[in-house]
């Protein structure tokens, strides 16, 4: 918290931000179980799985990395796919950086915690103490719970044996579907999604594993370049777990 005196309204805002942060952190952290289990099912060991959650710390990128590696894709394809999916975090920086005003080591820490959820919670609160509380509580909360639940999932996954028997391969597909679902709001996004599916499936028999997925990104880049600029940009972060999307109105109403 900053040194400035806090009046009652600000205190209430900060409380609302913290409460929201905790609920988002639990919802997001919980599905770390599925990441951990799917990662070991994809052939990574527990240490590699934990390294992804601690160091990469971006759900979409992590699921993509294990998806490409599990399908037999090369390291380069996994790195490229994870990086492309992580690019949106780079777009969150300019939104949260002015809210936080931190430098040095704390800026590095803030960068690592800049994900869908922390950005979403920070930006729905008024700039100032509430926005900062929203960012840090969500970022740290998701980090701690996401990593704890990843470990639990990896340990569970190791004891399960054949992942197909438990439908974990289908769970991986469902995880990607749930991640993309909230992003399909406009018709351009739905068209790009359909084209990406067609491109990926059509080229799978022809190209090395991992490349069809990257090729689908080209579809999006072409669509982004060609589509009329009138379409509203979708810069607002969409929290990955579909129901963890911050709903400040319902949360804050009790304080109003």
């Amino acid at each position: 918290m900053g040194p400035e005196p806090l009046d009652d309204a600000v205190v209430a805002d900060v409380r609302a931000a913290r409460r929201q942060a905790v609920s988002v952190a639990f919802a997001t952290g919980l599905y770390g179980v599925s990441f951990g289990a799917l990662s070991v099912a994809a052939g990574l060991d527990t240490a590699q799985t934990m390294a992804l959650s601690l160091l990469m710390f971006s759900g979409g990128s992590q699921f993509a990395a294990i998806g490409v590696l599990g399908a037999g894709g090369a390291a380069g394809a996994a790195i490229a796919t994870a990086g492309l999916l992580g690019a949106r975090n780079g777009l969150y920086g300019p939104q949260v950086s002015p809210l936080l005003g931190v430098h040095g080591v704390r800026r590095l820490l803030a960068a690592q915690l800049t994900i869908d959820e922390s950005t979403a919670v920070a930006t729905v609160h008024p700039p100032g103490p509430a926005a900062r509380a929203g960012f840090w509580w969500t970022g740290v909360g998701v980090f701690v719970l996401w990593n704890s639940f990843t470990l639990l999932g990896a340990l569970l996954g190791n004891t399960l044996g054949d992942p197909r028997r438990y439908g974990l391969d289908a769970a991986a597909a469902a995880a990607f579907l749930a991640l993309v679902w909230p992003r399909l709001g406009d018709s351009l996004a739905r068209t790009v999604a359909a084209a990406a599916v067609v491109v990926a499936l059509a080229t799978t028999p022809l190209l090395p594993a991992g490349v069809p997925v990257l090729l689908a990104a080209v579809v999006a880049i072409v669509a982004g370049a060609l589509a009329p600029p009138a379409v509203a940009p979708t810069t607002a972060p969409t929290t990955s777990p579909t129901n963890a999307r911050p709903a400040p109105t319902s949360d804050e109403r009790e304080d109003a």
Partner: protein
Amino acid sequence: MSDTTLWVAVLAGSAVVFVLKLVGHLVPEHWLAQPRVARTAALVTVALLSALVAVQAATSGSELVADARLPALAVAAVALVLRAPFIVVVVLAALTAALLRALGMP
């Protein structure tokens, strides 16, 4: 896949993702504020995730495959329409595939 390859992918991939996050905190805001940049980034996310759905649900190695994963994905889609939380969607898909396979579906 060798252990070294996996570690290279994990560590280099993590470094790339971190640098992207950091760049967002360091570059002047107006560089990334262009609507076309933001929209293209959003579409790239949609395309990659959609392609991953397809590859994860309907391929095996370099072959197209239709097996228990497809009905499981359909169940996941219904759960999403009903606004089920992420973890419920994933578990329902796993249970569907596991059940169908126990019944003899490939």
